């Protein structure tokens, strides 16, 4: 994941010593055996009960039955069963009641129901125990095979918080790796989609007004939204602090944003697109932050600006309220901020940091910048010397981002021409492309 991240490799065997696991398995198996015998007993009772009901039903059929009466321990003598409809039924605890055959059958049936209920509950307990035993067995096997649990700490402090919570919640060795793998996959997927959208936008921008982009993007939006939603979710979840800070920032950074001018009309259009996307909602807070943060930076990614616009007009704007207006006025580079937010999971913030640090110096968001401080710290060195904060920041991101760099400049120029039209249109797939832009810039 992160370069230079500290990692611990723990063999599963040490976490779950095989002997202990085996002991636990044995214990569970014993418990299961107990339940099994109990279950057998109860089922015997049930069968006896049904047999008895049959017998009791048959007795009143005759006035008297000829039987061999047991006498003592080893003798019988022939006799008759009379009063075939009178039964002394044991109710329990030494109490007997005189009942007729039909009433006796009723009593027996009620008793049978109680037994069935007990059997059911016992079966449920047994299933739980069996599941436990299975788990223990599988763990024992894994430990024997030498499965290893790998935990890595994320470089970013914010990441560490996230990763700390992630592995803890997941708990198992596989989940850690899987989670990171999933996140990487998510990013890769999103990047791919962003690339596609970028290309489309390029075409669209070159051919038609921004409306076309919207139309084209809209069908993709669904997919993008999903991806973005996922990414946004990830990002959101990971950086709840961001979203909070963003809302706080919005107020404060809006001012800073006002000072900056967005050079890319495309961004405006993008922003509009964003508005319609669900993701923008999610990302809204993040974008807000980025917008404010990057007010001072020039937006290399027109998409971001447009996105910011979108946000203003979109649901996000609702969330952000007054900030959206400011966003429209500011077309500062939002990309970096956006990038930062989405990458926190797995990527270094070096790219975004420069821009963010710049922003931060300009603005003074209150308190909500949990993530920003970390970014600032890491980017302090970079911020001062960045002539191209956006591009440099972006380059620091993963390879997928680098790819976007190639595609970005041409897109930007195209977007400039369409900024007016695009500002009017709002399509949600833009968020995906936004990410792409951000990542590509890196």
């Amino acid at each position: 994941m992160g370069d230079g991240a500290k990692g611990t490799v723990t063999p599963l065997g040490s976490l779950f010593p095989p002997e202990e696991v085996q002991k636990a398995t044995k214990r569970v198996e014993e418990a299961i055996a107990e339940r099994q015998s109990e279950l057998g007993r109860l089922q015997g009772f049930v069968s006896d009960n049904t047999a008895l009901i049959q017998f009791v039903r048959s007795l009143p059929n005759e006035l008297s039955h000829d039987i061999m009466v047991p006498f003592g321990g080893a003798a019988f003598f022939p006799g008759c069963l009379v009063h075939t409809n009178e039964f002394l039924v044991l109710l329990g605890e030494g109490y007997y009641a005189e009942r007729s055959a039909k009433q006796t059958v009723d009593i027996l049936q009620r008793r049978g129901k109680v037994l069935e209920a007990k059997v059911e509950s016992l079966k449920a307990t047994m299933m739980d125990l069996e599941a436990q035993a299975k788990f223990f067995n599988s763990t024992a096997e894994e430990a024997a095979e030498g499965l290893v649990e790998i935990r890595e700490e994320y470089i970013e402090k914010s990441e560490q918080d996230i990763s700390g919570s992630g592995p803890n919640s997941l708990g198992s060795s596989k989940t850690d790796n899987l989670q990171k793998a999933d996140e990487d996959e998510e990013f890769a997927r999103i990047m791919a989609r962003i690339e596609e959208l970028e290309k489309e936008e390029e075409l669209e921008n070159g051919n038609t007004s921004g409306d076309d982009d919207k139309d084209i993007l809209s069908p993709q939006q669904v997919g993008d939204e999903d991806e973005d939603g996922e990414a946004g979710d990830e990002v959101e979840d990971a950086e709840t602090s961001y979203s909070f800070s963003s809302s706080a920032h919005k107020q404060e950074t809006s001012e800073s944003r006002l000072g900056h001018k967005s050079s890319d009309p495309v961004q405006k259009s993008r922003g509009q697109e964003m508005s319609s996307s669900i993701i923008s909602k999610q990302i809204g807070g993040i974008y807000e932050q980025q917008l404010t943060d990057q007010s001072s930076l020039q937006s290399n990614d027109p998409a971001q600006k447009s996105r910011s616009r979108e946000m203003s007009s979109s649901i996000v704007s609702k969330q952000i309220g007054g900030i959206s207006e400011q966003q429209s006025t500011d077309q500062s580079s939002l990309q970096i901020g956006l990038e930062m937010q989405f990458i926190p999971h797995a990527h270094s913030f070096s790219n975004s940091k420069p821009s963010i640090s710049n922003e931060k110096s300009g603005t003074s968001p209150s308190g909500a910048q949990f993530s920003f401080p970390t970014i600032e710290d890491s980017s302090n060195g970079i911020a001062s010397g960045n002539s191209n904060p956006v591009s440099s920041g972006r380059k620091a991101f993963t390879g997928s981002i680098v790819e976007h760099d190639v595609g970005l400049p041409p897109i930007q120029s195209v977007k400039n021409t369409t900024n007016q039209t695009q500002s009017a249109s709002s399509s949600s797939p833009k968020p995906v492309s936004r990410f792409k832009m951000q990542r590509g810039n890196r």
Partner: protein
Amino acid sequence: MASSPAVVRELQRDLENQANALSKIQKDIAKNHQVRKQYTIQLGENELVLKELELLKEDSNVYKLIGPVLVKQDLAEANANVRKRIEYISAELKRLDGTLQDLEDKQNSKKESVLKLQQKIQTLQAGKSKP
């Protein structure tokens, strides 16, 4: 350290005593569990009996088995008896629960003290072996 072996021995004796006490407590807890189980079963049975008795008509004959003798009982009387028995068993169960709780607390504290003693002994022995 001439005194340390004596100290160690003393600590070990303490440890033994604590361990014995702990095992005793554990046995008590096990017995408590056993009695509780039995009482629970009896309670269930009595509740069944009460249900059946309520379903009986007023003129039905109820007999109670006392030893080898089946004694005819009044339905109302039988009802009352069974109810009282249920109450008694519930009270017993509650009492046992309280005792069980106490025993468990004592067990935990004893475990802790045993552990501490063990640690002390270990450190002493480690200290002794070093020089």
